């Protein structure tokens, strides 16, 4: 339950990075972790997705989430890790974490923050496709959160990320649904009216429908479940799980264990937020 022991003295900066750069990355990290700053919407959204990931992982891997560091010994990949808002909590829950992001400024900020907090996380400037091409050893849990709606070829991307899972692995995908409601709330509401996000953050045409994900993964030895909806309650200022998957939702993708010959592309019906 507690943080990893903090280092006694501040860690040595990496020799390849000069002191001014470290200071710049620390300032960026402070922005990422400021709950009232530009990433405030992400901070509000974080608890509901962290709870979902923990509960899904605990059920899938048979771990007791009430014990300290319940996921010790499992390898996790956080795709599009940004400043590390998911990677750090996952490290505290015991996972060995690899965080990748295409932006090296994000990786610099994430690294600076993890070092300040004394958390061991392997951050790399890379894409999921690069990891696959370089023969990265497989992961037990792949977090594919709010990335797919930003990539050029979502089908190819989703299949690559699914192949980063080892046999018996789990992947959680979060994205936005391509519905009229999502256009009204996530694009017009969040970007243009509330200005939670800079205009142009999301292109509605790239939002993904749950059945499209199923289709793209049909050729892979995986089982897909979901969608699991999440909605924002503006009065409480909190996100919560919901049967409504019209805007934000998550899917789980399980790779068959090696021993059993799984049927490729088998897909469970959508469970509508009641797993």
């Amino acid at each position, binding site marked *: *339950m507690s943080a990893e022991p*903090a280092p006694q003295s501040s860690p040595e900066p990496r020799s390849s990075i000069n002191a001014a750069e470290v200071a710049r990355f620390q300032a960026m990290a402070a922005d990422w972790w400021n709950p009232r700053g530009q990433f405030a919407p992400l901070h509000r959204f974080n608890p509901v997705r962290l709870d979902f990931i923990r509960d899904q992982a605990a059920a899938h891997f048979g771990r007791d989430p009430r014990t300290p560091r319940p996921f010790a010994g499992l390898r996790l990949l956080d795709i599009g890790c940004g400043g590390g808002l998911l990677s750090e909590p996952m*490290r*505290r829950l015991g996972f060995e974490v690899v965080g990748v992001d295409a932006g090296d400024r994000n990786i610099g900020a994430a690294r600076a923050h993890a070092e300040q907090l004394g958390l061991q996380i392997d951050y790399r400037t890379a894409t999921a496709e690069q990891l696959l091409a370089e023969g990265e050893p497989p992961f037990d849990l792949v977090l594919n959160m709010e990335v797919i709606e930003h990539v050029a070829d979502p089908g190819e991307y989703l299949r690559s990320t699914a192949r980063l899972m080892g046999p018996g692995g789990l992947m959680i995908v979060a994205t936005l649904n391509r519905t009229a409601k999502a256009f009204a709330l996530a694009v017009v509401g969040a970007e243009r009216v509330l200005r939670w996000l800079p205009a142009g953050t999301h292109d509605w045409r790239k939002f993904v429908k749950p059945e499209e994900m199923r289709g793209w993964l049909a050729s892979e030895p995986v089982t897909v479940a979901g969608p699991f909806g999440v909605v924002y309650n503006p009065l409480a200022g909190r996100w919560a799980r919901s049967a409504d998957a019209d805007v934000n939702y998550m899917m789980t993708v399980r790779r068959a264990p090696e021993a059993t010959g799984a049927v490729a592309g088998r897909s469970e019906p959508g469970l509508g937020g009641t797993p």
Partner: protein
Amino acid sequence: MTERFDIVVAGAGMTGASAALALAAAGFRVALVDPHPFEQQLAPTFDGRASAIAYSSFRMLRTLGAGEVLEPQACRIEQILVTDGRAPGAAAGSPPPFHLRFAADEIAGRSGGEPLGYMVENRRIRAALAEAVAASDVAVLTPARVEAVEVGPASARVRLADGRALEAVLVVGAEGRGSTVRSLAGIGVTGWSYRQSGVVATVQHARPHGGVAYEHFLPGGPFAILPLTENRASLVWTEPQRRAEALAAASPEAFEAHLRRRFGDFLGEVGVEGPRFTYPLGLLLAEQWTAPRVALLGDAAHAIHPIAGQGLNLGLKDVAALAETLADAGRRGEDIGAEAVVERYAAWRRFDTVALAGATDAFTRLFSNDFPPLRLARGLGLAAVNRIGPARRFFMSEAGGAVGDLPRLLRGEPV
């Protein structure tokens, strides 16, 4: 040498000790620090007050392991009678007439047959909490004065006056109005004195009180008779500061003579038991509830007028909300001292507290006044609330602590 904990709670009073218990129950390693020896607060001369504990707060004390000891010492409040402008003594022989009556059986459906609340002497609450703390994993570091809190990116270092140092992810300030952690964190306060003092004494009376709490609004300030166990009552006698000082300094005979005039004889022969205490009354609100790696609780964040008997209840609600916020955050791997996390606790509690502080402040100003139009207005107001069942039941549920988004501990569930 630096000892490491998840959380350091500064202030081992009722709120601080409850916080330490709740946070330890949530699985955190907790240190409880106080400048006084922990046992000192158990002496009968340390705290002569009694507190109303809402039934939801009492559920939490049970969950935290202090309920069994407290139960026989807690007096159920079955009714609250509110009168305006007249001392009960004016109605010799019979209970004073009332303007507003709250009865527990009216909200029985909502409260599961529980009373409006319980009255318990503070020294009993302190003793029960001390017993529960001794039986817990909480590390009690007393006497130890907090001298400095140095906030770093990953943790805070708490330096104690005796040279020891503690490292924790979060420091909780629960030391009451004069919170050291609050001032070390640079958090300012706003507030004012009511230029009133509460004189508190325990009285023994011949006839049973039947679990009735009396609140009389007299020109000098409210005069409350709060039922305790064994035919005793706690008096809270609010007067302008000067008069209160004179009352506190008066000879026992003179004090009892004043008392009889106010109290009347509707509960039979009355005698003062033990020492008298005086407490200055004032409103104090912290400008912020949190700072980096710091959270404030109870009177350190908000000290209100005791008129509605909600001071300790507010503190216990803070405890329940903080423990739940941190437990949930810890279980999802978040940094429990991060601003994003402690701010959730503050947002949860801020509205309720400011609303209550405002209400008690307005109430005190409205009632501590002998201006005739105001007296007429409040007489009409009390009568109106008394006639409107739903309004009355709402006030009772609010006083019982059953309104709003209740933390698990206040529902009697584990954190």
